[in-house]
């Protein structure tokens, strides 16, 4: 019989081919999600103790710098030592079971262990101090922290994202007095303002996209 491929077989072959294609696609996607950065964007991270930025900023009204003390002076914003928490909590909510780990840490001289939410690979050198000094606001990168009961990541923190601002800083710059203002929204004339701020801050645009800014 000369007819090698009856229509039925042809159909089966087509279905098979489609299935293989589909399989490959799903495999790739699955793997991508497997190696994806964690914690994921917009996924609240449960910390122990369950620290609420919302409560401490919106309700209590603390300034970022009360805990992240070195954000203006240092590359690293700083994670408060237990003693900082105890400035209030030696008096407040002493019986809250929620805070037990905190008191334990203080008692037993055992540091707290927070899960890192905003992380850059270790070949990337980010400096908080200079960004604050040049009018890049907290919420630009960290989102509306004052509304986060549990903190989460709102930006991809990928090179592409960094460059988006380094190539067009005027879109994001704020007056220095608004840097810690969580409620800040870009005004309608942001572009003009931004240009003005660029000049005020004496930002040298030409080197903003240099590799050496972040990689050493």
């Amino acid at each position, binding site marked *: 019989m000369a007819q090698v491929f009856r229509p039925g077989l042809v159909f089966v072959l087509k279905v098979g081919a489609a299935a293989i294609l589909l399989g490959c696609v799903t495999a790739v996607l699955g793997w991508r999600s497997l190696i994806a950065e964690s914690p994921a964007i917009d996924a609240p991270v449960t910390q122990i103790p369950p620290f609420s930025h919302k409560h401490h900023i919106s309700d209590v009204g603390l300034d970022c710098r009360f805990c992240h003390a070195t954000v203006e002076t*240092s590359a690293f914003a700083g994670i408060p030592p237990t003693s900082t928490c105890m400035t209030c909590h030696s008096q407040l909510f002493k019986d809250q079971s929620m805070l037990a780990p905190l008191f334990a840490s203080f008692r037993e001289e*055992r540091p707290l262990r*927070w899960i890192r939410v905003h992380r850059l*690979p270790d070949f990337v050198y980010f400096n908080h101090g200079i960004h604050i000094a*040049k009018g890049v606001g907290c919420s630009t990168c960290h989102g509306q922290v004052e509304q986060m009961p549990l903190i989460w990541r709102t930006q991809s923190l990928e090179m592409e994202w960094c460059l988006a601002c380094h190539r067009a800083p005027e879109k994001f710059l704020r007056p220095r007095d608004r840097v810690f203002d969580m409620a800040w929204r870009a005004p309608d004339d942001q572009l003009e303002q931004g240009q003005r701020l660029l000049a005020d801050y004496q930002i040298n645009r*030409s080197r903003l996209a240099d590799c*050496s800014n972040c990689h050493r």
Partner: protein
Amino acid sequence: MAHSDDQQERIAQAAPDGRTVFWRTLEEWQRHNVSEERMPRPTGQAIDASAVDRRGFLRLMAASLSLAGAGACSRAPQQAIVPYVHAPPQLAAGEPLYFATAAGLGGYAVGLLVKSDGGRPTKVEGNPSHPASLGATDIFAQACVLDLWDPDRSQAVTHSGQVSTWNAFVAALESRMGRLAADAGAGLRILTESVTSPTLTNQLRSLLQRFPAAVWHQYQPINRDNVYEGGRLAFGEPVEPRYRFDRARVVLSLDGDFLGGPGVRHMRDFAAARLGEDGQPHPGRLYAVESTPTLTGAFADHRFAARFSEIEAVARAIAQALASPAGEAQGTPAVSAVAIAGCVRDLRENAAESLVLAGDAQPAIVHALAYAINLRLGNVGRTVAYSAPVLSQPASQADSLRTLVADIAAGRVDTLLVLEGNPVYSAPADLDFGAQLAKIGLTVHLSLYDDETSAQCEWHVPQAHFLESWSDTRAFDGTISIQQPLIAPLYGGKSAHQVLAVLLGQSTPNDYQAVRDYWSKAHAGADFEAFWDAALHRGFVEGSELPPKAVALKAGFSPERAAPAYTRDEALLDIVFAPDPTVWDGRFANNGWLQELPKPLTKLTWDNAALVGPQLAQRLGLDNEDVVELTYRGASVKAPVWIVPGHPDKAVTVTLGYGRHRAGRIGNGAGFNAYLLRRSDEPWCGHGLELRKTTEKYRLATTQHHFTMEGRHPVRSMTLAQFHRDHAAELGDERQPNPSMYQPVQYEGYAWGMSINLDACTGCAACTIACQSENNIPIVGKTEVRRGREMHWIRVDRYYQGSAERPRTFFQPVPCMHCERAPCETVCPVEATVHDSEGLNLQVYNRCIGTRFCSNNCPYKVRRFNFLQYSDTETESLKAQRNPEVTVRMRGVMEKCTYCVQRITNARIEAEKGNRRLRDGEVLTACQAACPTGAIVFGDINDPDSRVSKAKSSVLRYALLGELNTRPRTTYLARLSNPNPELQDQQAGDPTAESVG
């Protein structure tokens, strides 16, 4: 804290990141938390701890291409932030602090500023206001931070090999003290290395008061016995010569190596005199008569190779010629009459501006002669001053050790405390110290490592590294520094102060108390606190240098007397013992940086060798790496041969410090042990060596195989005469850059550049180690070096010119040239190496995929490739040592000098916060900061007033391989020489001669 402006400014320079350093005392920590447990832990805030998980992860990933595409290797397992419970004061997370302390080698201290990252000492800089440093450091000071973090350090008290505790040790000692008290401490012996520490001396003295019959012995394999003995011969008392090379125009060095070895002040002064304040070269002249080639000889305008034993004759000939009014001179086997006459005339003409010195190893008489000659030339008080010895106890150490051994042999010793040092390994062979120890009831050894001596002692106590403990020490001029720790002892180590304190009856000894107590007495008064703080802040006690004293020749000592006839069997050879340029007397044997640092002249790493001259090699048919058997006074060792141009004939030089078997994983089994040949009566040179060639070969790892310039001109040089006749053109450097088809790139703002002055570089290689420590450069091990895979970002090339017997030697530090027309960049397929807007030739490690094309296209071959995973990512302590400001490279990526971009960036950030430009000198590269002679200048070449711009404007400037039109940002200043016109024929190598055939 208040500093004079000028000092403030120097301090600012001292801070690599340009921030004004507040170098704090550790007082606050002490006050805040009583126990030292609370002193900063290496952990700090675990910000950069992720590096490792990531790389471990990557290594696996590398094994399988299936994982290809995991982005720019940014995915890592989840990571925790661990804050302090109580943050240490003054610690701004992520910001380094600087503390002043001092490092001592052989008791002589160099003032340091040590960088502390999150409580981890990571980098050493010189203390600009300390007289022995003036901001510079030698290789040993640079490398000491690695010793601190060495995972092989001893980590527990041991009792006859079994792990024990400090308390058990204290108990054992106290139980013994009962008996000691009974017989006034007869049978108690303390063996230390050279002691300059006032506190330690005071403790020892009070111990001797308590136990009058006890004896304090001092021994150090490389000591200054001859210097002091020379004083006794010449002046009737031991003296400490203090040389002022900055005031000397003509220097005669009798086998002295003041441009090499530890200590940097002499280099700094010498370079200063050579360059002068105005930056114009000065007509100084250096004569060197020496046996084993040294950096001093390499730098000399006239170098005469003499056998060790012939130096005395030269010294006498000089003295006689000086004495004779007409100045006629008779020659010696090593130096012709003409040469001596010429040299003497030079000395005379520059009386009071000349300087004669003898090498520490030279016999006392040579020192005495040198002292006498200086007196006659009226140099004393001008270019040289004499003071009381820096050592607390200048008595002969050889005798001291001999006495001790005799006492032990006679059974007069039942308790021996060995505080530091490693005598079992390093004592002269004839004393057989190791065997003697067995005869002693109680032996105690305090040391950083559980070494050869520890193995022979009943008790071993881990010593606290000087960055872990309080002490004090003296510099070469007697200036006292108080050593303050930067970190609590990692392995519960103890200091000599603590051990002695136990003997003095304190049950809970505390080195901080010991030091402070001494000083509160020594400097009693209301202002003590102020004094103490000041001393700690500036890193030394002001005005504590030893005062110069008047000297006069002892009656009956006449330098003019002719040398006693010296007879020897010409069939036999001399053997010369020398400290190893990198591992010194063996104490640095386990320091990977120093082991892998090419020895300045031989460029050997990881081994020592029997150094012979070309004539001897030719006569005996010796070739490099041939194994020979050296037999000297009954003892014999096998050693590989290395031929050193300029080494005198009929002599073999062996360097100490190798052949150890309990040094640690790095040092064990490297090289051969020259101490086995050493004799207590002739510690430095002896006659009667037999050399037998074997058929074996021993593979040595050298980093430079070709020592001639092959008719090329990487190093350019000219005589001072030519220079003044303005023959700079002879340098042949193209002043006008060659034309290019591309539009030139304009660099507004900063444009970083470097100038390296070959007329100041002595080849000491401090830059190499400083760079290694600043930039987390891994060591690769001997086999990899043999393959040609060493990783140093700045190498020091060594070239010879002229005949192999009398070569001229040139050194040339070669970092990345940061070419404006970088050939490496155009061939990289992934933009892993590009320029930034300030003209830096960047290497982006995380983008590099390792094609190695850039290295191929780099005419200077300054790029280094991680052929394997060289960075240790497992050992915790080594991770803690690293500079968090610099990425730790993984295998498969290219790396190279970045002009310390991390320092530039941090400084710029600070400047921009204040909306100001960087000041000249605000950014120092690691190599520049360490360079003892200031040969390396770095800065903004767009600023016409910057030091680097000025340097580059010199007529001596030339670009390495400039003909390739790479337009390097790193340029050189040609080497100058100032030969004595009367001695043209005597001149080592003819500068016009091309190269060794």
